[in-house]
């Protein structure tokens, strides 16, 4: 058996901490590569982690207009959901649908974070979160398409299928593209990042600073790690198996994402929805062709 039978808390906690640090470094690398492409020196790689820790010692002030327990609880929910996703995905190799659920709850949390503060900017961000959810939902049809191919949605089962039959990337390339767009839309500064676009100050994050922002950034780092992990597992599971290979692959994908983010402008909300729909339809076409 691959993992020890007794998963104790220390084991899982260490995995989560590793994912946190590695994800933070990846996001730092993302910013660095973007800066180099645009001809700037860029921040140090550790900058994103530093930001997260920095917010821990900054003063937290809660707006007078906010709806109170929700304002804090929804940010904690965002964190909790990705911890669950990490436990189900990389550690237990459980059902992919649970990770899809985590993604859906992440969307709900974005919406709630925006609504709870009472500021018009965050409200706009949360409206865009609803709008972009409708675009990303078709992409989440990816699990269905993968299921028709592999007859299982357990991540361990998908890995086993790929070890026997070769990577899904070669069998369902357009579905992989759709999933890649899904990962891209969760990357900071991405063309589809309409939720936190700078045209609406910072989108749903505008009113969140201090400790709460630190917690939120933790959740985002874990989300980035978990989504990258899922992408690699589902489409390259036959080739990439060892943890070190996973890390190298994640770094590679981050560099590709940074290239895309640096070279594309942010698209308008309705265009973002439209483009993501096109990729989802392409994925369905791929399945119909096979």
């Amino acid at each position: 058996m691959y993992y020890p039978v007794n998963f104790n808390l220390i084991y899982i906690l260490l995995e989560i901490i590793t994912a946190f640090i590695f994800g933070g470094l990846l996001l730092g690398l993302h910013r660095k590569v973007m800066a180099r492409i645009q001809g700037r020196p860029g921040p140090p790689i550790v900058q994103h982690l530093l930001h997260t820790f920095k917010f821990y010692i900054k003063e937290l002030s809660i707006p007078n207009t906010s709806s109170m327990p929700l304002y804090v609880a929804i940010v904690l929910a965002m964190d909790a959901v990705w911890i669950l996703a990490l436990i189900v995905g990389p550690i237990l190799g459980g059902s992919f649908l649970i990770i899809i659920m985590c993604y859906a709850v992440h969307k709900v949390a974005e919406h709630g974070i925006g609504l709870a503060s009472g500021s018009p900017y965050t409200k706009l961000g949360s409206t865009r979160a609803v709008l972009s959810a409708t675009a990303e939902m078709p992409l989440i049809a990816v699990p269905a398409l993968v299921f028709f191919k592999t007859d299982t949605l357990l991540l361990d089962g998908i890995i086993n299928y790929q070890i026997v039959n070769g990577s899904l990337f070669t069998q369902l390339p357009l579905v992989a593209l759709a999933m890649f767009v899904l990962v891209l839309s969760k990357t900071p500064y991405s063309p589809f990042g309409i939720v936190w676009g700078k045209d609406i100050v910072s989108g749903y994050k505008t009113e969140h600073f201090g400790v709460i922002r630190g917690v939120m950034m933790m959740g985002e780092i874990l989300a980035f790690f978990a989504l990258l992990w899922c992408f690699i597992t589902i489409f390259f599971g036959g080739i990439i198996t060892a943890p070190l290979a996973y890390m190298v692959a994640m770094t590679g994908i981050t560099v590709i994402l940074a290239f895309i983010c640096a070279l594309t402008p942010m698209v308008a909300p309705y265009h973002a929805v439209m483009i993501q729909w096109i990729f989802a339809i392409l994925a369905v076409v791929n399945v119909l062709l096979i």
Partner: protein
Amino acid sequence: MAYFDYLPHLVLFTIGTLIGLEISYKWHSEPFVKKKIEPVPLILALIGGGLMIFYAPLGLLFIGFVIGMRPGYGIYESVIGILFALILWVTL
């Protein structure tokens, strides 16, 4: 075999970058000027590259020091260090 086998690598790399950031700002408080290769970071990078073969976390600490230096500084040094480590890894 799990992901946290690489926790010491990551933690030491992060600490290395932090120290590098702090110390390089002590070294260079002037506005950014394009620099040639400096001796001290080069030596540190070479040490790091050499240590990568024997004990990777410690090597990452030294290489991280050079990578994490103030933006714009320590680029060539870190590239040389990584190349040195690669050459060692291929030859040994």
